């Protein structure tokens, strides 16, 4: 029924955002807490990163093949034998970006492996490099979307806004995954609870910065994308965006409750009733946030194959092929 590209995009976005989120979380957000965390948590997080990386590479390859097929207009079987794949890889902006992203994925794999070693975990170089590679892998997703290709200064600004938008999304939604894992494995002793509290507080601080970035870059993207207010209600694209807003509002509301009401109650050890309740609710809330985030990613996957409201008016002299 639905375009296979939607599923491939959704998987690729989810995998890329999650693996970047774990990297950001481990290096920047909850570094000290992560160092004290149990070997089990560290093992889980490493497993998540390797799986996500593999999934990202596989879905990335599938995405590339589907786009090559659509660009050339030839049936799937034919593009493997002709030089189509090579033409797309070497002669199109998309192909070159995809090659760069593959190189970044390989680099990220090496750097993450180094990060896991005791030497690497202390090295500022490795930590900076792995965060940069992760940010690069996420940011270059902008070239898989419409933010590029616009001519002139406008094109550059729009692309830059989209790059930052993607990185901020990974820093917030992606980092929720390791936060959830950390909270779910928090022990009841005072030290673990204090660790959970510290991680959540630091996460919120970064979260505010991410939301702020999403806001500014979102406004810039809106400026270029929204054709009219009526397009919001009248087009598929507009309705999907409205759904995304609603879900986003939900996430922000939950985050506010987590930060303002629950986290301050994480005092002492988890045997105190208030503290235990707070931890339990926090766990549940963060898991809910992750699930809502996943739905938002699914919507983004569909949005990418839907003509934006602003472009519905530009059709008089052309027919287009949607894929």
């Amino acid at each position, binding site marked *: 029924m639905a375009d296979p590209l939607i599923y491939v995009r959704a998987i690729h976005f989810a995998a890329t955002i999650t693996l970047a989120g774990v990297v950001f979380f481990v290096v920047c957000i909850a570094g000290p807490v992560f160092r004290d965390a149990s070997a089990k948590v560290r093992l889980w997080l490493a497993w998540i990163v390797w799986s996500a990386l593999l999934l990202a590479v596989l879905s990335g390859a599938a995405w590339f093949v589907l*786009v090559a097929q*659509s*660009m*050339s*207009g030839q049936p799937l079987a034919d593009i493997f034998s002709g030089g189509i794949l090579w*033409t*797309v890889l070497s*002669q*199109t*902006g*998309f192909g070159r970006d995809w090659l760069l992203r593959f190189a970044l994925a390989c680099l990220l794999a090496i750097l993450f492996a180094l990060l896991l070693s005791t030497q690497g975990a202390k090295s500022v170089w490795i930590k900076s490099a792995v965060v940069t590679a992760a940010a690069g892998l996420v940011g270059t*997703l*902008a*070239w*898989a*979307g*419409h*933010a*590029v*290709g*616009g*001519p002139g200064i406008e*094109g550059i600004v729009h692309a830059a*806004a*989209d790059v930052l*938008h993607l990185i901020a999304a990974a820093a917030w939604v992606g980092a929720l995954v390791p936060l959830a894992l950390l909270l779910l494995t928090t022990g009841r002793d005072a030290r673990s609870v204090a660790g959970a509290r510290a991680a959540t507080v630091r996460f919120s601080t970064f979260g505010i910065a991410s*939301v702020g970035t*999403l*806001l500014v*870059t*979102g*406004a*810039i*993207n*809106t400026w270029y*994308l*929204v054709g009219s207010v009526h397009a919001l209600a009248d087009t598929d694209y507009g309705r999907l*965006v*409205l759904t*995304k*807003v609603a879900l*986003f*509002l939900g996430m*922000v509301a939950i985050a506010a409750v987590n930060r303002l009401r629950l986290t301050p109650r994480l005092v002492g050890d988890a045997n105190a009733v208030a503290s235990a309740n707070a931890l339990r609710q926090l766990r549940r809330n963060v898991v809910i946030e992750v699930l809502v985030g996943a739905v938002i990613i699914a919507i*983004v996957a569909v*949005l*990418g*194959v*839907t*003509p*934006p409201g602003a*472009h519905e008016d*530009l059709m008089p*002299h*052309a*027919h*287009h*092929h*949607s*894929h």
Partner: protein
Amino acid sequence: MRMHITIVSCLLIAFGTGAAQAHAFLDHASPLVGSTVRNAPREVTLSFTQNLEPAFSSVEVTDAGGGRVDQGKAEISGSTMRIGLKTLAPGSYKVHWHALSVDTHKTEGSFSFHVGGP
């Protein structure tokens, strides 16, 4: 106050979703779409709304009988596509273009122009 800011902010964020489709549509052409020109043009120039991928974009110009009157390979740079023409006799000509935008979406379209007599 804070709630208003939050709501407006969230609406703005939502639209900043990026990664949506953009197609290269014909913005303007020379000769002008549907126009009649007195002197036969040497080339057709097409300007699009998005930057194009040269590897997968093309254009054909045909006469009333369907025969090709262009020089074959279009010159594509940025959002502009240009193709040389053979000497055109007065009459009706059709331009059929295929565009692949840099963000991987295909569009095509056509228009006519007329070369008037002396």
